[in-house]
């Protein structure tokens, strides 16, 4: 094993430079270090001006997504040892505006998330005193996987459609819409369908499937989108029938 490894890190300081550059740092190589540990070593010891987001360091907060050697990953779960010999290229996620160094602007996703109404929609609320809505383990399993999304944005960064057409509502938001649609306690599928079968919704996806490949939580957004297309098509066919859609 090498004693050190080089990291080529994307830098962009809009107050100082017009365009991003790569800066190379030499850090100690340690078997149990992830790329995020190396970035923290740089920040603490070599260059305090390097900016990146991170928090939980256990793959659940979704803050530290970056591209490592071209692939979107959570840097807290990307071991240096998997990327030898180096230099290991660390860059911000694709298709988002870069704010600074490795920090990207997420406001587009935050707007889209709200647009798909990711909350329980019901015609009538049952009082708390009547207890829980019953939901069998099978009913839970029907949507559970889509509820595992940590909003890390790796899927957007991997999605060539989002790259070409930024208005595309995108994999994570669609998976989360489907998470509520499939929830036995929810009655909002029709309302969401109107949003998602519109121009910026599911039909833009050409099923490249990159979103599912990079997802660190096996959410399978591509699967959610395909399911949705089917629902949407069936709904559309029903509208052609004399008695209309239910």
């Amino acid at each position, binding site marked *: 094993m090498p004693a050190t490894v080089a990291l080529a890190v994307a830098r962009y*300081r*809009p*107050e*100082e430079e017009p365009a991003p550059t790569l800066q190379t740092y030499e850090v100690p190589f340690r078997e*149990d270090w992830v790329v995020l540990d190396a970035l923290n070593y740089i*920040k*603490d*010891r070599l*260059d*305090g*001006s390097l*900016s*990146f*987001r*991170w*928090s*939980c*360091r*256990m*793959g*659940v*907060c*979704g*803050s530290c997504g970056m591209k490592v050697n071209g692939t979107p990953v959570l840097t807290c*779960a990307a071991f240096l040892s998997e990327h030898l010999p180096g230099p290991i290229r660390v860059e911000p996620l694709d298709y988002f505006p870069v*704010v*600074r*160094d490795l*920090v990207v*602007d*997420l406001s587009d996703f*935050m707007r889209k*998330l*709200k647009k798909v*109404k*990711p*909350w*329980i929609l019901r015609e009538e*609320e*049952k009082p*708390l005193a009547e*207890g*829980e*809505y*019953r*939901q*069998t*383990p099978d*009913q*839970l399993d029907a*949507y559970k996987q889509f*509820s*595992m*999304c*940590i*909003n890390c944005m790796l899927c957007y960064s991997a999605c060539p459609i989002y790259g070409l057409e930024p208005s595309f509502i995108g994999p994570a938001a669609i998976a*989360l819409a489907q998470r509520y649609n499939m*929830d036995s*306690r*929810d009655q909002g599928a029709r309302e969401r369908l109107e949003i998602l079968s519109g121009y910026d919704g599911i039909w833009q996806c050409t099923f490249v499937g990159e979103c599912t490949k990079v997802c660190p939580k096996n959410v399978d957004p591509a699967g959610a989108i395909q399911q949705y297309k089917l629902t949407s098509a069936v709904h559309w066919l029903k509208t052609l029938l004399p008695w209309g859609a239910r």
Partner: protein
Amino acid sequence: MDLSACDVLVVGGGGAGLRAAIAVAETHPNLRVAVISKVYPMRSHTVSAEGGAAAVIKPGDSLEEHAYDTISGGDWLCDQDAVEAFVREAPAEMLRLEHWGCPWNREPDGSIAVRPFGGMKAQRTWFAADKTGFHMLHTLFQTTLKYDVIQRYDEFFVTKLLVDEGRCQGVVAIELGTGKIHAITAKAVILCTGGCGKVFPFTTNANIKNGDGMALAYRAGAPLKDMEFVQYHPTGLPFTGILITEAARSEGGWLLNKDGYRYLQDYDLGKPEPRPVLRSMELGPRDRLSQAFVKEQEKGRTLEGPYGHYVHLDLRHLGEKLIDKKLPFVRELCLKYVGIDPVKEMIPVRPVVHYMMGGVSTDIDGATPLPGLYAAGEVACVSINGANRLGSNSLPECLVFGARAGKVAAAFAAELKAPSPSVLTQAHDEERRLEEKFRRGRGAKERIATLRAEMHETMEESAGIYRNGPALQKAADKLRSLQERFRHLTLDDHSYTFNTEQTAALELSYMLDVAETIVQSALQRTESRGSHQRTDYPERDDKNFLGHALAYRAEDGPPRIEWVPVTITRWPPGQRVYGR
């Protein structure tokens, strides 16, 4: 400087903060409520909570039992009126979250499933596999999106509370993306910023857990209560400190020393049975289990690795099916971070700093002694956790006291007129301070990482699982000198755009304040109780210390400590009995 105004401002967007914001929106829809957070709300540390959330729901369980477990678990330092309110309101809060869509695990008939948990005499811990906090946080966050009235300041870092005419009237904050300074006035401010695990080197806590809200309140003159009580969780992964949930033991996992022996039986925690027994052995309280580890290490019966001593958590006998169904995250974390499959191998674990029982002193409604300032969740100390929190009480605490603080703060704000104009003078002073300190501070020589490392070392040596007077005194002196050296901090980064070095510097200053209150409170509590164990005062001393330590900021010198009695309602101090 940018100016904006709202009626109720919630600082922090985790479980407590989001619950508080919804409470304001639901009870006073005409009020302007805002959530300000240094991260996007779904990044908040609630996301890392794993095992579950306690609330009485099953037949055969009772509120009295939940209260007794909590109070005895807290070694009689809990305020019992607060505990009674907590256990009474927790079930409705948990149900409300169910109605909002939280994917709780279920029984075959579709009702809520519960699991056992440490120190609990009945099964009452609701869970969403072993990602309970993650699901609660995302459910809460997504639910807040339906309230248009809830405004958000995402990635804003609060540097100061504005206090005028004896009440809190807003905050000054840095918009991280641009470096712009904002003054946000409010009629009530609710702190929901979580804990401060990062004052220690080895912690389950996320990088963002720097005691921000504690330091903000402390600097504004509000006291911090029971800061000496720091919870070590008995099972963290060496090196990373990643938490292996207590649910691993509640589902039947064993703690083994280097000889494969279930050593907890030697520490008055009961006899080893093949199946988990409530309030016994591996299901004892966290303080006792972490202390047993240290004793076991002293006897030379732990294992030793590159990151110190450890023992084994054995889940192999639970089988792949149960592990995948109820502990999938444990398996994922072990495979990903240490290359171990708990289905086939034992997990190396050691105690790790996890939770602050102490925090901003509040009453039962989340109100601090400073009018207009409220606090809820880990940042606060009501106190329901006393000298040792029981696992799965902190998530429902966020809901119950987040909701209470939200309602009471909203009612307070509804009665008030706009903030006094003079708070803006303060805001301008704060803007100048930030400019001078972090933009023109060249020529100084201390680095963040150096001071932080020295603080870490100081805290680990003095304020760990076992403490003593001389070590604490030394630490108090050392922290004073670190405070002095902090004034000579130098930064590499003098830019405005997303300057994380500036944020880290401000966080370090918060941590130094909080560390001083921990050490000073620990120094002055000359007894042993719950998580606070003094080798020079090994006994509990109800005569002198059945009370809370309140740490006030002093103009110069270490924090000033005052004492207030514990509220006892129905459970006079008794012996903590586990496993017999």
